[in-house]
């Protein structure tokens, strides 16, 4: 599915990711954990080809296709979806217009209005979102929680093969987090080959979406990889005692 080999990424000011590698196979859920400023969100944006960063070395491949030279929209059309940590609002562009256009850009024939509304109604209902979303501008006047739900609504409609969840739980209350995670898990059950990369500070979300692998990212490098239990150790002991925890150190 997704393979990153020896990826180094910088801005004009500093190097952020250093020789970063990860392999995520079909249907696998991986979590990348780490403290603030260690490069987690950079990783998510670099996978989608953000111009804010310079890839100084390394390759990103998706289903054996090299992504490095593809534009962001081309990567998205291959089936990669990023749920943003802080989804923005876009004045004047309605959810309806944007989502229908995004769906149609992936299809040979445009989606019919009835089919689109039916899918949208079903998804909004499952996410317990308010009516009338269709004609509202993207995230205009929406709370943090509503914005996160809107991200997952888009995910459900765009049907990606690879999902990046960047700090999904930030801004979500516990009830909304459960609803959102139930929707993601339902999607994964219906699409078992879909892979997920969860980026998070806190292990709370991993109680709802269980990863097969947990990677600890410090100073732009994966320093340790383990199973779900590694996340629980992080919760108990913090990142400072990483060397004493179970799991495989990257230099072992």
């Amino acid at each position: 599915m997704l393979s990153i080999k020896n990826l180094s990424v910088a801005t004009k000011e500093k190097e952020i990711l250093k020789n970063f590698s990860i392999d995520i196979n079909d249907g696998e859920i991986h979590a990348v954990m780490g403290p603030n400023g260690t490069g987690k969100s950079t990783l998510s944006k670099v996978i989608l080809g953000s111009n804010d960063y310079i890839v100084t070395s390394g390759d990103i491949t998706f289903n054996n296709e090299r992504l490095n030279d593809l534009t962001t929209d081309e990567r998205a059309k291959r089936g990669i979806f990023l749920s943003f940590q802080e989804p923005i609002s876009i004045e004047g562009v309605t959810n309806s217009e944007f989502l229908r256009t995004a769906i149609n850009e992936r299809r040979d024939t445009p989606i019919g209005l009835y089919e689109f509304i039916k899918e949208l109604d079903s998804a909004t209902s499952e996410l317990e979102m308010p009516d009338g979303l269709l004609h509202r501008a993207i995230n205009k006047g929406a709370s943090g929680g509503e914005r996160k739900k809107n991200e997952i609504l888009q995910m459900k409609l765009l049907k990606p093969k690879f999902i990046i969840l960047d700090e999904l739980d930030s801004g979500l209350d516990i009830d909304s987090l459960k609803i959102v995670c139930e929707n993601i898990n339902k999607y994964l059950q219906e699409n078992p080959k879909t892979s997920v990369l969860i980026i998070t500070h806190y292990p709370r979300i991993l109680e709802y979406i269980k990863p097969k692998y947990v990677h600890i990212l410090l100073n732009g490098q994966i320093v340790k990889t383990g199973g779900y239990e590694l996340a629980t150790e992080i919760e108990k002991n913090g990142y400072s005692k990483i060397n004493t925890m179970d799991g495989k150190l990257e230099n072992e």
Partner: protein
Amino acid sequence: MNKLFIDNVLDLENVVITEDTILIEKLNDVSKDVHIYIDKNVCLYEIAIIKNSKNKIIYHLSQGSNVIINKIAIDNSDTVYIYLDGENASVKINNGLINYYNNTYTLKIYHNEEKTTSNIVNHTINVKDNDFTFDIDVIIPKDKENINSNQDNRIINMGSGKNIIKPNLIVDNHNITANHSAYIGQFDKNSVFYLMTRGLSYETIKDMLAVAFLLNDMDLQNLKDEVTAFVKNNI
């Protein structure tokens, strides 16, 4: 409500609006001087779709009258005067302009009476490498109070043209509310990236953001689809 439709330059004449009116103009290549008088307590709702104009248009608003102007234009060098001559007169202007050549849009609003209101949204997309200027004056005299005036001026620059905004508030009275803002730049890069992560191409996004930027504040009634197509075809 009275409805006026003008699609011939020769029909663009001085006019007195005596009852609530919707005025729709579709004009090309026009350069005229026109006075529009709005009677007491009358509303004028104007939708103008115009290419290549260099008009001088003077609106005279009587007491309690209300003018709403929605202008979607390509290469506009109009000079517009708004005379708020009666108490409680108000004007709302939404300009969505597309610029290809060198143009200056000039707007002068005179709050000649108390309790008058002006709300101005000037948005331009400068497509190529030529120059565009917004020259906006709001004049509030010393003896006029309880006036409200707001202006939001923005230019999106898609080429390398020179862009200037002069958002002038000439205010001689303290008991008023006035705001002005100016922005010159490009489409918000975070919005572009966000939409691209959903699989939209830059060309599609450009059209989408252009329509949003130019038409967002306008109520175009049954002309919305036509105007949207007009914008997309000219960006």
